[in-house]
């Protein structure tokens, strides 16, 4: 039902064609078999289509098509369960780099856009997302700066070339680039429930140069706010693709599975649950599109819309995957079906960058209650 521009329609079509052809769920299963959580082979292909620089402006080596276009890609990535550093590097790092103005930006933004480097955001310090409670610290002066702290749920951190780390320098927020191979960095790469990568990172007296600082103070606050807003909206869009795929498989099953001599889709109890899921998917699609459009136009309701989209999608994603399993019965619980894969990826994305409760709490606070 969405009205797309010509450029956006082109992106949507190429995302569908490219991902369904070579990077479908079968490809995901093959990666899982071999324990490959990075799928680094896809990177040059994504870069060639411009996707790794989709939100990076042209003067920094990207194609600057924006977030609505990025969402069209993310939705297909979700639908196909394609493993890629699109959200971590193209969207989160891409936004952080594009919104901060520093020497590091000029070096790394083109590399990200060209797929020559993968950057991962090292933000969370606790099991729940609390971006404004940063304990990681930068101390010392000039070229004797030291970084200390601990980061968790660093998505794609296990194979990233640089980490974008949030830290405090006095009262100032800092965004800085850290080489995971540098002295004092202990990175533990982990396989998560969705067969993707996330790392924990311990930072002990890691030497930092001024040139590693992407942004500091208010500039860092602004860059981080936009980065998180973008990440929320695009992650929610990936979830939307997953939820729609789960729902489509479920509707198909209702049309074909027979019990009691009838198609189970003739049973009203199931029809109504399917229709309700459909309604929820329709309205959350609109909300997500609105959030992405708000990012593109830098409008005043970016925070509200991206948070509402993330919170709402967490609930609808859960509904889609749980209803999917339930309406499939026993076979829904098997690894052979895709539903479980959808459910696991959906759960990871629901937690990533803040769950429904986190963003609902923000909204309540913002409304003065």
């Amino acid at each position, binding site marked *: *039902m969405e009205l797309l521009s010509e450029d956006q329609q082109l992106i949507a079509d190429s995302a569908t064609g490219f991902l369904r052809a070579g990077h479908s769920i079968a490809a995901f299963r093959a990666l899982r078999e071999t324990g490959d959580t990075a799928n680094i082979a896809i990177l040059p292909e994504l870069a060639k289509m411009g996707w790794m620089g989709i939100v990076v402006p042209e003067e920094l080596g990207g194609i600057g098509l924006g977030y609505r276009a990025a969402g069209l890609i993310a939705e297909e990535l979700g639908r196909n369960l394609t493993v890629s550093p699109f959200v971590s590097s193209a969207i989160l790092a891409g936004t952080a780099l594009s919104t901060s103005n520093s020497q590091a930006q000029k070096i790394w933004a083109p590399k990200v856009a060209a797929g020559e480097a993968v950057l991962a955001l090292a933000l969370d310090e606790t099991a729940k997302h609390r971006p404004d409670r940063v304990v990681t610290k930068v101390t010392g002066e000039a070229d004797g700066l030291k970084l200390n702290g601990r980061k968790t749920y660093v998505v794609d951190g296990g194979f990233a070339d640089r980490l974008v780390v949030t830290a405090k320098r006095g009262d100032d927020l800092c965004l800085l680039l850290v080489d995971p191979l540098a002295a004092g960095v202990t990175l533990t790469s982990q396989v998560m429930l969705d067969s993707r990568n996330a790392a924990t990172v311990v930072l002990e007296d890691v030497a930092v140069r001024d040139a590693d600082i992407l942004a500091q103070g208010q500039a860092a606050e602004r860059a981080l706010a936009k980065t998180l807003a973008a990440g929320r909206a695009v992650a929610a869009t990936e979830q939307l693709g997953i939820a729609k795929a789960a729902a489509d498989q479920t509707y198909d099953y209702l049309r074909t599975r027979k019990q009691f001599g009838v198609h189970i889709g003739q049973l009203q109890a199931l029809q109504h649950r399917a229709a309700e899921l459909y309604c929820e998917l329709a309205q959350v699609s609109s909300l997500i599109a609105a959030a992405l459009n708000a990012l593109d136009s830098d409008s005043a309701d970016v925070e509200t819309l991206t948070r509402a989209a993330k919170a709402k999608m967490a609930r609808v994603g859960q509904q889609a995957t749980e209803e999917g399993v339930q309406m499939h019965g026993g076979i829904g619980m098997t690894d052979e079906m895709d539903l479980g894969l959808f459910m696991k990826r959906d759960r990871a994305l629901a937690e990533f960058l803040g769950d429904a409760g986190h963003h609902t709490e923000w*909204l309540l606070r913002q409304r003065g209650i």
Partner: protein
Amino acid sequence: MDIDTFRSETRAWLEANCPAEMRTPMGEDDICWGGRTFEFRSPAQKQWLKVMAAKGWTVPAWPKAYGGGGLTGDEQKVLTEEMHRINARPPLQSFGIWMLGPALLQFGTEAQKRHYLPQIARGEIRWCQGYSEPCAGSDLAGLQTKGVDTGVHFEVTGQKIWTSYADQADWIFCLVRTEPDERKHTGISFLLFDMQSDGVSTKPIKLISGASPFCETFFDAVKVPKDQIVGERGQGWTIAKYLLTHEREMIGASDSALFAKSDLAEDAVSAIGLDETGRLDDPMLRADLGQFLIDEICFDAHLEMTGAYMRAGHELGARSAELKYLGTELNKRRQSLRVAAGGSDDLVWEGTANDAGQVAKDWLRSKANTIEGGTSEVMLSILSKAVLKLPG
């Protein structure tokens, strides 16, 4: 005209022509329904209708030839935005605008359009909807009111029920079985007639909110001239369903002034207060409010997208059921939260303290939302078949 010029001219015109009294929040009693017997609440209300109707802006999307504004989709959006900007009230609301008009535009003859549509646009004739019968609710096509062809007339006999504002309406659009030998869905015709015709009577029914907005409506050999049929004989069901999609869009969008607009969060804070951490001093209600607010933002975004889609020239069709289902279920939650936030203060039924129990009355009224225009269950059934193509 380019859209920016249209905006500035519209803004200036509204500034000059919208009376100050028509820029204040309104309640159900302030709705201008129009019609032969309508009593305007103020000279300003009458004036506002007059000037808006003269521009065709009571029905901005309709062609000018039929009393409309002939505005493009973008212009309609600008007009709505500019009216919201100054809190201008809708000059006219009616079943003619929401329901009959779109059906006539689609299925009426040229003569019917030229006759009936301008009367609706100017608020001269108020219409009611004769669909439901005591034995035909969700199963509407099972209706039994009959129309017998006597050569010059259809002679209509039977009973309708839940006919909103039948006692105040001038004309009725009515579903009547004219082809008794045809099957259920193909034996129905869509007739228009004057409520002052001989043989029409109404009996108001009292609602749980205390108001009596709807009626039982009886027809005893009412003579309806044969040119007052819309479409062909036996085509009534198709027209009826088309009209329902527009009714459902309207109910779903809660586009009417049936419910007072108020800020739930603010209402809750002023009624309950904050705790020492600055949160609403009622954690469970606060959590419910949180979920509601997220859903409200979501549905508003959906309405916005859907509006853009329709302004681009698409019809929603069966998807009107999706708006109706989501919008009405959400409004029920909204009204429940409002009454919960007010506590016992909002339970006072008579007196001036709380606007004579308006919140409680709205709460009760909202329960009808998921019934009128087709129940939520029926909406889900429509979607499962028409959109999801699940087996019947």
